């Protein structure tokens, strides 16, 4: 471990020299700067452990240095020194993020003590940060590991059911076939449940959405449709992208979580559809928003259920759905994600005719700046 690096920023040469002398005796490495600007350059380049900065300097003041230091790296400790010690300036300095305040004149002992406390504070903070990061990594790995261990055998079982039910393992009588079909539905439900719980655990762990960036929703949705369309066909429904094409639709979003939202909406639309039904997805612009609509010709949702469908665990009857849907968490997570984007999600439906889910996401400026 190298000795701590201390940067002294003071316009008075005598101060820089005497402080250096004191600190070099105490097993510190020392750098100096004669003004705020030079000091900030050295902070950026050298990343010292602590900075001793004079408040009153020509050019940018000690206050500005402390403020900027906080933006560069708030874990670097700042100790403010000045000959014009007042309560006001002390409070001001602390508010701007200084660790402590040392009025001139001070003894070598006083300087060493205050520096020692500052560095101890830094050490503790850095340690806590490392522990937090390690814990987070462990939890993320744990979640992935548990999910894989739970899913793997279930997926293997389900795969065999799929083969049997597709008549690819030889003829099966109706009665056992029905039972296997039923078993397979229950298994699908369980797999969905694990996915949903996994989502919840990860959301808890990481926060609901990642960093929001300008995202071309048109491109994202077209890719999604390409991917999902074959399985839609296999379920007896037609999934179609209704455009428009050839123009970007930039919204401010986190790609991963928005994909989750639209995957959920599309797979619901497919699952709850009539045989030979349609699912259409399209985009349009509204002032300040990009709006995506997912329409299906499915069984629809009863009027009194409509306000409840985004509630956690709420599940509309599965009597007519092709495969058992999951835990009912999907739509509630989707709504939370959309709202975390400062957007909204709406539904309209007519039982027996179909449903339409509309998602509003804040638009991003053409060049990628915020709306």
């Amino acid at each position, binding site marked *: 471990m190298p000795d701590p690096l201390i940067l002294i920023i003071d316009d008075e040469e005598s101060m820089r020299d005497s402080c250096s002398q004191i600190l070099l005796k105490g097993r510190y490495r020392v750098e100096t700067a004669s003004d705020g600007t030079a000091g900030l350059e050295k902070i950026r380049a050298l990343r010292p452990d602590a900075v001793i900065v004079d408040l009153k300097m020509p050019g940018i003041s000690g206050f500005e240095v402390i403020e900027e230091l906080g933006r560069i790296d708030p874990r670097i400790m700042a100790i403010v020194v000045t000959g014009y010690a007042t309560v006001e300036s002390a409070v001001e300095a602390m508010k701007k993020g200084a660790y402590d305040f040392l009025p001139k004149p001070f003894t070598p002992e006083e300087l060493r003590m205050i520096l020692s406390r500052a560095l101890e504070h830094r050490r503790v903070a850095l340690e806590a940060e490392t522990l937090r990061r390690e814990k987070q990594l462990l939890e993320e790995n744990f979640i*992935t590991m548990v*999910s*894989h261990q739970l*899913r*793997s055998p279930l*997926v*293997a079982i*389900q*795969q*065999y*059911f*799929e*083969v049997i039910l*597709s008549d*690819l*393992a030889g003829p099966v009588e109706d009665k056992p076939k029905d039972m296997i079909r039923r078993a397979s539905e229950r298994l699908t439900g369980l797999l969905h449940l694990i*996915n949903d719980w996994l989502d919840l655990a990860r959301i808890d762990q990481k926060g609901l959405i990642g960093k929001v960036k300008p995202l071309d929703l048109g491109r*994202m949705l077209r*890719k*999604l449709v390409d*991917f999902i369309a*074959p*399985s839609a*066909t*296999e379920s007896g429904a037609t999934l179609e992208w209704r455009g428009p094409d050839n123009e970007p639709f930039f919204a401010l979003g986190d*790609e*991963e979580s928005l*994909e989750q939202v639209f995957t959920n909406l599309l797979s619901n639309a497919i699952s709850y559809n009539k045989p030979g039904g349609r699912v259409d997805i399209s985009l349009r612009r509204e002032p300040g928003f990009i709006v995506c609509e997912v329409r299906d010709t499915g069984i629809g949702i009863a009027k009194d259920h409509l306000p409840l469908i985004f509630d956690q665990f709420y599940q509309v009857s599965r009597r007519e759905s092709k495969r058992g849907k999951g835990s009912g968490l999907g739509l509630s997570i989707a709504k939370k994600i959309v709202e975390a984007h400062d957007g909204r999600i709406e539904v309209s439906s007519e039982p027996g005719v179909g449903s339409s889910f509309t998602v509003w996401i804040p638009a991003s400026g053409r060049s990628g700046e915020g709306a």
Partner: protein
Amino acid sequence: MTTSRLKIMVIDDDPDFRAAMTAILTSVPYDVVAAAGVADAKPKILAERPDLILLDIMMDSLFDGFSLCHSLKTSKEFEAVRTTPVIFVSAVKDLAGSRFGFKGEEQGMAGPDDYIDKPVAPADLLARIDRLLKR
């Protein structure tokens, strides 16, 4: 006119998955060649020259599947089989970020021709294979 059957290679460390895929594929009929992992697969690909490859990306390390795909599509070693379509098969939906946005692309890795989730719906799999073989 004799037409030989098309040959599909299944690369997966799970013997149950290999058995299930074999049942699905031989029903078409396709010929099936199986490999239990990347090391097992490499010499078999060159020897058997499959018409399409199903590649599980949940074997031991995520990287194995991704890097095999990249090798198949870009390296000199596999030049003779470069145009072989590859379908990624995955049991866990979002490893390495979004499964639709193959993150490997951001690191300059060549991606697969299609993706499919486990458990595989036989009709879905056969439709995707058909689409790729017709190209």
